[in-house]
C-alpha cells in the first residue's frame, strides 16, 4: 500500500472536557488510493466527520489529534504548521461541507469566491482565473455560467449552491476531496444529481474522494470501498460490493438489514436493538457488544483489532477462529 494517496495510521481524536477526555475517534487506520472513492458510513456521533476534519486539519478546538499520523502521498501532514497545511488545503485536499446554504459567504459574488480560491493556489491572472471560474461553473452544470458567475449566493437554489461549492472544492485540481455529508441538506430529488456529479467529476479529474455519509444507499452507488464506523472505531472496511452483499461484522449486517431492497421478498426490515453508546460510556471490549446478537464473553473484555477476512478487514472476535483455521489449512 505504498502507492496510497492518503494514509491514516492509528488516528485518535480527543476532546478534553471537564468530565474527562472524550475519545471521539479511537485508533483508526485506513488508506485511500489515487482516484478511489472511499465511503465512510456510520451513525451520527460515530466519528466520521471528525475524521474528515482531522484530515484537512480543521478540527475545532478543544478537539485535537491525540495520536496517530496522517500521510498525504507519503508525507506526514498532521503535524504541519498552520501555514504549511493551509497551502495543502484547497490545493491538494478539497472539501465539501454539508450545508450549501451556509458554506458560501453571502456578501460576495460566487465568481469572486472561486477566483479568490484559484488565485490563492495557482499563478493565474484575474482574467484567467475568471475564465477558469466560468468553465468550472459550466462543468458542474450551471447554465449560462458567464452570467451566473456575477451572482450572489442567495440568488442560487440549494442544489445549485452545492454545485458552486463543488466547483470551489475542485478549482485548484486537488488530488483528494473530503466530502462531509454533501447531500444530507438537499432535497431528495436533487441528492442523486449531486452524487452523480461528484462521481463523474472525480472520475474525469482522477480525484480521490472520502465520502462521509450516514446514507448506505449513497455509498453503495458511489464508493469503491467502504469503511463502517461505530463509536469512533472502524468496524469493517473493504470493497463496497463485498461489504454490502456479504457483510461480516454484526453491526454492518444490522445496517444492511435496515435497508429496504427493491424487488425483495416482503419481509420486515431488521433493526438493531438499542442505540450507539455515548462517548462518555463506551463499554469495555468491543464497543458494539451490548447490542450485538452474537456477542460472547471475550467481546465484553477484549477489544478486537481489524483482521483480514476474505477481501475485507473486520474488527470482530467471531472471525478470530476462522482466521486461525485458515492459518492451519493454509
Amino acid at each position, binding site marked *: 500500500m505504498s502507492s496510497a494517496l492518503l494514509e491514516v495510521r492509528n488516528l485518535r481524536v480527543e476532546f478534553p472536557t471537564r468530565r474527562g477526555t472524550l475519545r471521539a475517534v479511537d485508533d483508526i487506520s485506513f488508506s485511500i488510493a489515487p482516484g478511489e472513492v472511499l465511503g465512510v458510513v456510520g451513525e451520527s456521533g460515530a466519528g466520521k466527520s471528525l475524521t474528515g476534519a482531522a484530515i*484537512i486539519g*480543521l478540527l475545532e478546538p478543544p478537539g485535537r489529534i491525540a495520536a496517530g499520523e496522517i500521510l498525504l502521498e507519503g508525507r506526514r501532514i498532521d503535524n504541519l504548521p*498552520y501555514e504549511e497545511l*493551509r*497551502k*495543502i*488545503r*484547497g*490545493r491538494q485536499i*478539497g*472539501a465539501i*461541507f454539508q*450545508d450549501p446554504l*451556509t*458554506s*458560501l*459567504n*453571502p*456578501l*460576495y459574488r460566487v465568481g469572486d469566491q472561486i477566483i*479568490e*480560491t484559484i488565485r*490563492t*493556489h495557482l499563478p493565474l491572472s484575474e482574467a484567467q482565473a475568471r475564465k477558469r471560474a466560468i468553465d468550472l461553473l459550466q462543468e458542474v452544470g450551471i447554465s449560462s455560467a458567464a*452570467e*451566473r458567475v*456575477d*451572482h*450572489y449566493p*442567495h*440568488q*442560487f*437554489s440549494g*442544489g*445549485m449552491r452545492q454545485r458552486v*461549492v463543488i466547483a*470551489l*472544492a475542485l478549482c*485548484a485540481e486537488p488530488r483528494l476531496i473530503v466530502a462531509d455529508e454533501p447531500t444530507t441538506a438537499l432535497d431528495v430529488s436533487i441528492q442523486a444529481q449531486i452524487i452523480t456529479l461528484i462521481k463523474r467529476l472525480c472520475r474525469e479529474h482522477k480525484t480521490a474522494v472520502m465520502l462521509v455519509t450516514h446514507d448506505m444507499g449513497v455509498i453503495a452507488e458511489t464508493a469503491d470501498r467502504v469503511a463502517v464506523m461505530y463509536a469512533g472505531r472502524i468496524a469493517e472496511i473493504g470493497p463496497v460490493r463485498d461489504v454490502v452483499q456479504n457483510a461480516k461484522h454484526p453491526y454492518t449486517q444490522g445496517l444492511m438489514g435496515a435497508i429496504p431492497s427493491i424487488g425483495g421478498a416482503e419481509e420486515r426490515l431488521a433493526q438493531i436493538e438499542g442505540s450507539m453508546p455515548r462517548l462518555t460510556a463506551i463499554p469495555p471490549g468491543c464497543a458494539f457488544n451490548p447490542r450485538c446478537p452474537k456477542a460472547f464473553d471475550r467481546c465484553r473484555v477484549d477489544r478486537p483489532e481489524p483482521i483480514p477476512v476474505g477481501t475485507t478487514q473486520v474488527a470482530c472476535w467471531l472471525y478470530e477462529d476462522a482466521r486461525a483455521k485458515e492459518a492451519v489449512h493454509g
Partner: protein
Amino acid sequence: MIAYVLRRLIQSMLVMLTVAFVAFSLFSFVGDPVANMAGEDASQRDRDQLRRDLGLADPFPLRFVRFVGGVLQGEFGFSYRNLQPVARLIVDRLPATVELAVSATALALLVGVPMGVYCGLNRSSALAQAIQAVSLVGISLPTFVTGILLILTFSVGLGWLPPFGRGDTVRIGWWQTGLLSVSGIKSLLLPSVTLAMFQMALVMRLVRSEMMEVLRKDFIKFARARGLTSRAVNFGHALRNTLVPVITITGLQFGSAVAFAIVTETVFQWPGLGLLFVQAVAYVDIPVMATYLVLISFFFVVINLVVDLLYYAIDPRLRDGGPGGTGKGR
C-alpha cells in the same frame, strides 16, 4: 431600491409625527404657559386675551397642525425659564454638542473597532483578555465618575487641562466653533475622552462578540478549507460580514454619545444642548423639553435611516435582483 427608500422615508415621517404629537401633548396638558408668561399679577381678562392671542383657545387638532407648521418653520415657542425664543437657544447651543459628540464618537470608533477586531481574532491571547477586562471596567464606570476622575487628575492635580467650559470660540456664520483655538481644543479634550470612554468599551465588546459570532459560521470554516490565507479569511471574509452590525453600532453610538453628552456637559459645564435640556427638566421648562425631544428624534430618525440605507449597500441579500439578477434559479 426606490420603493425601499420611499417606504423607509414614510416610516421615518410617521415616527416624527408621533414624536411631534407627544411633544405637543406636553405643551397642551402639562403646565400652563399662560400662567408662566403672563406673570403673577395679570388679570383674568388679560390671561384670556393672551390665551386667544397665542391661539390656545382653538380646538386641539387645529393647534396640533399649527404646532407642526411652526416646527417645520423652525418656530418652537418661548422658554418658560428665560422667555427667549427656543430656536435661538438651540442654535446657540447646537455647535458645542455636535463638536463634542462627533469627536467622542470618532475616538470611540477609532480605538474601539480595532481593539474589538483584535480581541475577536485572538480571543485567548493575554492582551485580548486584558483588553476585555479593562473594557468591563470601562462599561461599569459611570460617565460622570470618569469625568470627575479625569478632572481630579488633569485639572486639579496636574493643572494641564481646563476643567470646564469651551475655551475661546470663533464664530463662522452662525456656528460657534471651539476647534480653531488652542484653548478650545484643550477644553474639548477631557469632555470628549470622558464621553468616548464608555462608548469605546461598548464598541469594543460588541465588535468582539460579532467577530466571534461570524468566525463560527460555516462559510468561514469553508473559506479555511479552501486554503485561503488567514488574512483573507479574517479580514476579507469575517470582517466584511461584521460590517453590518458595526454600522448599527456606529449609528447607535453616535446617538448615545448625544444622549450621554447630557451627563458629560453637566460635569464639564459644557454649554451644549444637553446642559440646556437638564436645566429645562429641572425647571419643567416644557417648550425647551419639547423642542429638544423633536430635535433629538429627528436626529435619531435620520441616523436610523442612514444606517438602513448603508445595510442596503452592503448586503446583497437586501437588494432584490442585484446586478443582472434573475432572482432565484433552480
